[in-house]
């Protein structure tokens, strides 16, 4: 490839960075210091704006690069991600969005702690939220690294390292200076860019096959080297029962995890009412559904046009299938069309990564300041002072979270980004979702139940990941030379999600105190009607 595509891509990327920094400056000069402004962006976004922002937060680089790559390599088995990522939204729409908007103020812990003893529950849910966010951040930054490696050709590991550090630094700037208002607008801009880019490429793929999707599938099957097996289950998760259980585990994590992602839940606080929260989810289901349908076409398109072997040769995990497809659709390497499309895809993917990491960093800094710091510090000064200090802590927390994520991302550079996201979903589904659902729907749920369900999901999920083949024991592990992989599945969901629910139930049964019926009545009235909501 010539230097042309690099120059163009870097120009587009710089334009996006300039735009987002302008948004940050504009948002940052208003009402700094108020918690309402920093965590919730003033709460007056419209359902459509918030719907786009939710979609922007959710359609990560992991989906754009990772899912299309998995479909290009493994065909049907990669499709599970597209389906699971969308179906999960029904759970959010039915059971979570409105009730969370009505019960909470800024974070997930607000909702779970509403009728419990606040301190232990807040600390538990806050810690789990930060863990999930950091895992998710690592996935996004690994995506940024592999994108840069491709963009700069043979520039090598140093370019990748600098890319990861640069993304980390930018996201800290967005969050620390712009808060939720800037983050939301960046998400909206990014969602529009990503949907536009994906639509353009999808149209080109369909045109390439003259609108005949059957021909697209047949060509994909043929060029994948697997024939018809490419379109049926089993290429990645076939074979032994361990691999099949892994598929089930991933399926569970995907469908349950979304409802426990802190950066998604905090988006519901940016609109004024529960009804507006519901309508934003409606918008986002439409946008996200359309996007994942396109990833299916693009994934099979990459297999058909580029070929699975070429994708694997460029990046064994498949993360670069999308940019390769863009080059081919534009007319091949060296052509003007290929150069332009490649640059557009790279810029869109970069915008996606930046926006998503900003959203997650904001959510995790909110968890650190509003849940952990606010529970652990000694109360002093007025409420207003306390709030101001809390926001200052949140800005600092953004820097700390950024640093941790950069370090971990540099370690995990060779893993598929969609797969890493699957892990984050598994931890969210094990630690956050049981506690949240119990708190909203189980009258007898107690403080001990809440604490046990969070730790009872979080600790097994993390332990099982450490003991899994992802970390050690195989040629593709983080530490290929060590072997302490006792747990055979690479996604812990199938074990840790039921454990989270079980521990919540057990903790409630063994509680020294019974649940307070008055506080349950209050929580339920608030949740379903919005009485007393902020």
């Amino acid at each position, binding site marked *: 490839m010539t230097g042309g595509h690099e120059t163009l891509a870097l120009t587009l990327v710089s334009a996006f960075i300039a735009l987002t920094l302008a948004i940050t400056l504009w948002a940052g000069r208003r009402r700094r210091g108020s918690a309402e402004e920093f965590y919730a962006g003033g709460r*007056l976004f419209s359902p459509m704006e918030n719907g786009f922002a939710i979609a922007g937060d959710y359609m990560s680089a992991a989906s754009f690069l990772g899912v299309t790559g998995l479909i290009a390599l493994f065909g*049907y*088995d990669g*499709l*599970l991600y*597209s*389906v*699971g990522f*969308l*179906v999960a939204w*029904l*759970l959010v*729409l*039915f059971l979570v969005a*409105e009730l969370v908007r009505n019960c909470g103020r800024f974070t997930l812990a607000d909702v779970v702690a509403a009728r419990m003893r606040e301190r232990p529950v807040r600390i538990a849910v806050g810690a789990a939220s930060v863990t999930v966010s950091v895992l998710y951040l690592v996935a996004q930054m690994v995506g940024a690294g592999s994108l840069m490696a491709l963009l700069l050709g043979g520039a090598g590991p140093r370019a990748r390292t600098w890319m990861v550090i640069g993304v980390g630094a930018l996201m800290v700037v967005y969050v620390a200076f712009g808060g939720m208002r800037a983050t939301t607008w960046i998400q909206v801009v990014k969602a529009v860019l990503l949907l536009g880019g994906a639509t353009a490429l999808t149209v080109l793929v369909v045109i390439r096959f003259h609108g005949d999707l*059957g021909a697209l*599938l*047949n060509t994909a*099957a043929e060029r994948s080297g697997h024939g*018809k097996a490419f*379109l*049926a*289950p*089993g290429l990645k*998760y*076939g074979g032994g029962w361990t691999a*099949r*259980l892994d*598929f*089930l585990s991933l*399926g*569970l994590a995907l*469908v349950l995890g979304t409802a426990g992602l802190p950066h998604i839940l905090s988006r519901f606080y940016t609109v*004024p*009412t529960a*009804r*507006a929260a*519901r*309508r934003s*989810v*409606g918008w986002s*289901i*439409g946008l996200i*559904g359309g996007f*994942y*349908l396109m990833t*299916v076409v693009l994934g099979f398109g990459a297999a058909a046009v580029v070929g699975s072997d070429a994708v694997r040769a460029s990046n064994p995990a498949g993360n670069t299938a999308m940019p390769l497809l863009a080059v081919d659709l534009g007319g091949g390497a060296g052509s003007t069309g290929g150069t332009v499309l490649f640059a557009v895809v790279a810029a869109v993917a970069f915008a996606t990564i930046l926006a998503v990491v900003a959203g997650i960093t904001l959510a995790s800094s909110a968890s650190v300041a509003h849940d952990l710091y606010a529970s652990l510090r000694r109360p002093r000064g007025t409420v207003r002072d306390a709030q101001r200090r809390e926001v200052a802590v949140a800005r600092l927390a953004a820097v700390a979270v950024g640093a941790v994520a950069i370090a971990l991302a540099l370690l995990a550079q060779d893993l598929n980004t969609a797969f890493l996201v699957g892990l984050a979903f598994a931890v969210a589904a094990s630690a956050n979702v049981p506690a949240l659902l119990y708190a909203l729907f189980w009258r007898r749920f107690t403080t001990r139940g809440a604490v046990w369900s969070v730790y009872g999901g979080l600790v097994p999920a993390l332990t099982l990941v450490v003991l899994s083949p992802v970390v050690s024991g195989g040629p593709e592990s983080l530490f290929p030379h060590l072997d302490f992989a006792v747990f055979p599945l690479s996604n812990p969901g199938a074990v840790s999600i039921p454990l989270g629910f079980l521990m919540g139930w057990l903790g409630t049964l063994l509680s020294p105190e019974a649940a307070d*019926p*008055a506080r349950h*009545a*209050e929580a*339920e*009235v*608030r949740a*379903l*009607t*919005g*009485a*007393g*909501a902020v």
Partner: protein
Amino acid sequence: MDKQDGRSAGEPGAVRLDDTWYDALAPGWAEPAGAADAGAHEGEAEEPLATGGPRGSGIHPGEIYLAVHRSGAFQEVRRRYRSFVVPATLAFLVWYLAYVVAAIAAPGLMARQLVGAFNVAMAAGLGQFATTFLLAWAYMRHARLRRDRAALEIRWETQELTGGNAR
């Protein structure tokens, strides 16, 4: 207190002053007014929550929420919510798990070809997309027509009692 009395629950014009309520009380752009009204009347048929009694004073908030929780109007909203989401959640979870389990337990069935390259697995995957869109639409419609109006009235009356409306 004067201000509160001026904005009693029956006057929508007064309610609109409060911006967080404005959205929920501005029907007409997306829903047929008749349907919304029908839902409201069903809600009103239940026993009223806040007839007479001292407003925003005297009663402990916990007592108020217990009373509201016991009221027929609230139980009706709760019943309508649960009677939709419980079966719908079970249905989509079972359908999704069946889809996932079929891939690992019956790969032969999933690989069976329907039309050209199109097999059972791909059809089921697209079916998941279709049912998701359909259920989301049905839920939003159900909530808008059957729950929103009644829930808003309870919110208003509860906040009258707890003094929350004076903020």
